[in-house]
């Protein structure tokens, strides 16, 4: 029977044993039997696979939600600025991660997976889902959002805002900060001065062959 130590998590019906896996010896024996036509046992083994129900828990779910306050491996305490984007309830100014090509590439990829369907590839708020009837978000290129601190953007991603759904459970903080960095790059791409660009990038704007290049 389950020792008391276990009962804090397992509300188990007394008398019911829960087996995680069949011992190796039994497995190999069953392997032989299986060929002899005993397949169903092996096809559907008495263990809980991902998303399968389990009678061991009161809510019937085999996949246990982490307990409140659980910190996943490699993550920081849940109230640290890296996890919330806030210090004393105020959004932090600067992205805590070091901005690099790798980070921007990751941010671009995650942006395209999660955000572009609504915000559009360039952030004008004209994504496919908006074209099919979702209320349009504001363009990233309005001055209020250009001025917003990095922590504010982070908070919008993790907690959502208005009709925008929260992504805190779906996107890890590291990726959210990568997305923030990419959104900043998108904003810069629409507001930079041509004079500030490297020579190669100036070309399309200055050359008379601009049309051909684009």
């Amino acid at each position, binding site marked *: 029977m389950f020792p008391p130590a276990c009962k804090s998590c397992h509300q188990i019906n007394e008398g019911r044993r829960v087996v995680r896996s069949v011992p190796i010896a039994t497995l190999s024996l069953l392997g032989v039997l299986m060929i002899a*036509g005993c*397949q169903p046992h092996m096809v559907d*083994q008495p263990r809980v696979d*991902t998303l399968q129900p389990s009678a061991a828990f009161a809510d019937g779910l085999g996949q246990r939600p982490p307990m409140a306050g659980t910190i996943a491996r490699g993550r920081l305490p849940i109230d640290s600025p890296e996890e919330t984007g806030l210090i004393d309830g105020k959004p932090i100014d600067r992205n805590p991660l070091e901005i690099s090509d790798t980070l921007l590439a990751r941010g671009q990829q995650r942006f*395209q997976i999660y955000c572009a369907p609504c915000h559009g590839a360039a952030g004008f708020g004209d994504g*496919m*889902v908006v074209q099919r009837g979702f209320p349009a978000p504001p363009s990233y290129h309005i001055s209020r959002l250009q001025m917003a601190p990095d922590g504010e953007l982070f908070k919008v991603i993790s907690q959502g805002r208005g009709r925008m*759904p929260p992504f805190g459970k779906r996107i890890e903080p590291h990726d959210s900060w990568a997305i923030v960095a990419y959104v900043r790059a998108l904003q810069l791409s629409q507001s930079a001065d041509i004079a500030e660009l490297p020579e190669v990038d100036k070309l399309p704007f200055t050359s008379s062959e601009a049309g051909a290049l684009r």
Partner: protein
Amino acid sequence: MFGLVFFPIVAVGLATSIVRSPYQTEQGIVRNQPVPFGHEHHVGDLGLDCRHCHESVEKSAFAEIPSAEVCMGCHSEVWRDSPMLAPVRESFQSGTSIKWTRVHDLPDYVYFNHSIHIHKGVACESCHGRVDKMPMMYRDASLQMSWCLDCHRHPETNRRVGDAVFAMGAVEDAVATGKTAESKTNCSYCHR
């Protein structure tokens, strides 16, 4: 009692030893689903990336089936009153899961893992077919052992680079990725 147990087992044993027709392997067969969810609409028309919904596919063995919360990200507004989506709204409110019928389900004695395939550049399309053309999900491959092995014997073929792994339709193959793939046919890779 003995007969009750014994006969179904023999029947299943016999059935599985018959050379498998597509009907038996359930290839190409559409299942009844609680919500008529269309990959054609979401992937083909809207251009959604697989990872918008199948979030863990790069990181774990399991690809993840999206929760009602993911659907409601858009369907809180788009088609918000459609009766078709009633089970999604119900599940979102009650916190219970939508009871999708599984389309792919290997026997428990086979240990499949998505992340290794994705990392090695095997595209979703290689195993699941043109998902963007499926109004309803069906199984494109037989999932028989010979199907796994045909590829495992020649793992250099059929691989792509970067995000092309998630794309549908003709994409350039990753011949020059520099990423190698070994031929893994030892029984214990798939059976433990």
